[in-house]
């Protein structure tokens, strides 16, 4: 079985007439099918519009579940999810919508979960931080830092025991590198050459705490991973192709039996830690406006669009058209979710 992108058989109509599947382009010195870049972009658009729709609707106080938006970090989720197969096992942390969506998770079921409805991904039992979509290989996200790092390692152990070439992936923020469980896990994965990929989304902050509170100066998380014999790579987490390529290398390594990998993706969260606002609108000053502006400038979608255009794979109009189309779908899904039925109080004990 090939990875998600290569599996794809149909091209979206809006992609026009160019035969992009045949065409190959070179990015970061690697030849890629052009369609890969287009798919990655559309995946990011889907995430972006979903998260921004949540940000717009959340203040209505109808999504009563603490929500950590992933706007600005789309490239990590899109790039990694595109490099794995649907039968691989992906895990995530509290900031999980991106990963759920990148795996192909339904916007409707995400929206329904946020609205606390029975059609939710977790039937209204889990909320924003507890998503699941096993059909798409998104096993679960969990809100306690570090949990899924160990859990993904365990899924990799199961694959190894079964002698199958499936791979486990876990996404987490850099704050998880402060929790001991990740080192216990990496040690075990390295000893047993488990097919697990640790994807660290380093967005420089844990809630409002900068790295300086949480890491000694000069820290290289990759060096830590390597000291546990886990090969590591640091990439521009806002460059979706770079993430995709790094993830592919790690997936190849894992699938071939060569063991775990660690990928540190440098990125930035645009909105507040939890909730829909921009920090500066909320009067928070733990990060400067300049820093924020710089990272907005490095927007992963903007960079990806520029690449598509410069490679002649799409023009601005087309890209906007995809966005419009996706946005329409997303909005429709949220509207439908808002009208979906509530769980019955009498079903409180179901699924226990």
């Amino acid at each position, binding site marked *: 079985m090939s990875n998600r992108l290569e599996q794809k058989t149909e091209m979206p109509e809006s992609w026009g007439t160019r035969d992009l599947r045949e065409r190959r382009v070179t990015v970061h010195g690697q030849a890629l099918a052009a369609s890969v870049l287009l798919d990655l972009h559309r995946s990011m658009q889907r995430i972006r519009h979903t998260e921004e729709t949540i940000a717009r609707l959340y203040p209505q*106080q109808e999504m009563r*579940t603490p929500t950590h938006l992933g706007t600005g970090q789309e490239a990590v989720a899109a790039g990694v999810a595109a490099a794995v197969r649907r039968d691989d096992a992906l895990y995530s942390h509290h900031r999980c919508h991106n990963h759920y969506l990148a795996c192909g998770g339904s916007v409707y079921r995400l929206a329904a979960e946020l609205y606390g409805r029975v059609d*939710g991904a977790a039937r209204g039992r889990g909320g924003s931080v507890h998503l699941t979509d096993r059909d798409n290989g998104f096993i679960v996200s969990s809100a306690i830092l570090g949990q899924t790092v160990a859990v993904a390692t365990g899924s990799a152990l199961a694959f190894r025991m079964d002698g199958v070439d499936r791979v486990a992936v876990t996404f987490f923020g850099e704050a*998880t590198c402060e*929790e001991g469980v990740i080192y216990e896990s990496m040690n075990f994965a390295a000893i047993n050459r488990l097919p697990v990929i640790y994807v660290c989304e380093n967005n420089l902050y844990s809630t*409002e*705490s900068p790295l300086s509170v949480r890491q000694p100066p000069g820290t290289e998380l990759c060096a830590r991973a390597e000291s546990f014999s886990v090969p590591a790579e640091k990439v521009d987490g806002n460059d979706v192709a770079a993430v995709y390529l790094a993830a592919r290398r790690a997936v190849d390594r894992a699938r071939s039996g060569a063991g775990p990998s660690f990928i540190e993706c440098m990125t930035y969260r645009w909105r507040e830690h939890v909730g829909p606002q921009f920090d500066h609108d909320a009067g928070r000053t733990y990060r400067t406006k300049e820093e924020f502006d710089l990272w907005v400038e490095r927007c992963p979608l903007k960079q990806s669009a520029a690449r598509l255009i410069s490679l002649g794979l799409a023009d601005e109009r087309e890209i906007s058209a995809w966005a419009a189309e996706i946005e329409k779908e997303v909005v429709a899904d949220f509207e439908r979710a808002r009208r979906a039925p*509530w769980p019955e109080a009498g079903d*409180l004990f179901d699924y226990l």
Partner: protein
Amino acid sequence: MRTLKYHQAISEGTVQAMERDPNVFCAGIAVDYPSGIFGTTTEALKRFGPARVFDTPAMENAFTGICIGAAAMGKRPIMVHPRNDFMLLAFDQLINLAAKWRYMYGGNAGSVPIVVRAVIGKGWGQGATHSQSLQAPLAHFPGLTVLMPATPRDAKGLLLSACRHDHPTIILEHRALYNVEGEVPEEPEETPIGKAAILRPGRDLTIVATSLMVQEALDAAEELARHDVDAEVVDLRSIRPLDEETVLASVKKTGRVIVADTSWERCGVTSEIAALCAEKAFHDLKAPVRRLALADCPAPVSQTLEQAFYPKASTIARLALHVIGIDPELVGDIDREDTFKGPY
């Protein structure tokens, strides 16, 4: 007396504890944010600066050990968990070390008087891992002191006591109490550890309650009064040590008991109090003891399920009428509107 909100009382207690003892410091995730753990640490940071009020990495287990080691050298750490659920990562240090320290070294290693403040969450979809309430598992272990202030006065007073107490102490504060207002003396008045409080005397029935359930019990008691039932509300305050005397004296008087707690029933505080009555107040009891706790499942997120999950004032009042032998359906719509706007 002047009134304060629960969170302001904690803030004032922290400042006064730090003022009178330079060894007190306060640390944990987010304590130095402008939001200061819902306003409880902001003033302390302003007064005492980052040397004594500081943020930490996410390292619940090691930081608990670090507080123990600092306490062994004479410090009085106040470690703060924005949610008490995170404390499960630190149960080894708390239970296998802090709780045992003084005894296990025969008193020769001194004591490790750490204070752990940890917030109980509730509702607004905080879900299964952000709204637990860990008093029972903690209170199971000799060596720990476990406190649950239900009023602003005790939120301050118990913190002040904890900061002078000789044992590792866990204070479980309730997020839903943070905006409750009440009288709080300006001076550093300590609430005695191990003493329950009778917040409302009554003759017909005893409601023993903890934390948020004390407020719900007080509301319920008012409603019961309307039905000519005179309920006594006992605020347990301290789960370990437990004030058996006050509970037993109340039961002796009323002969009927309801116990309401913020956690589950099984091996929980409601069971502990019910057991106490069954063992030591057996001959005073006129009716079965009744326990009121969370529905026996993890906390769900959806509003309809949350409604069914949490007991509240009306639940207590109905159960009380039932115990007395009055039709529970007579209880009116007494539950306070939940004005919490999230997210935590």
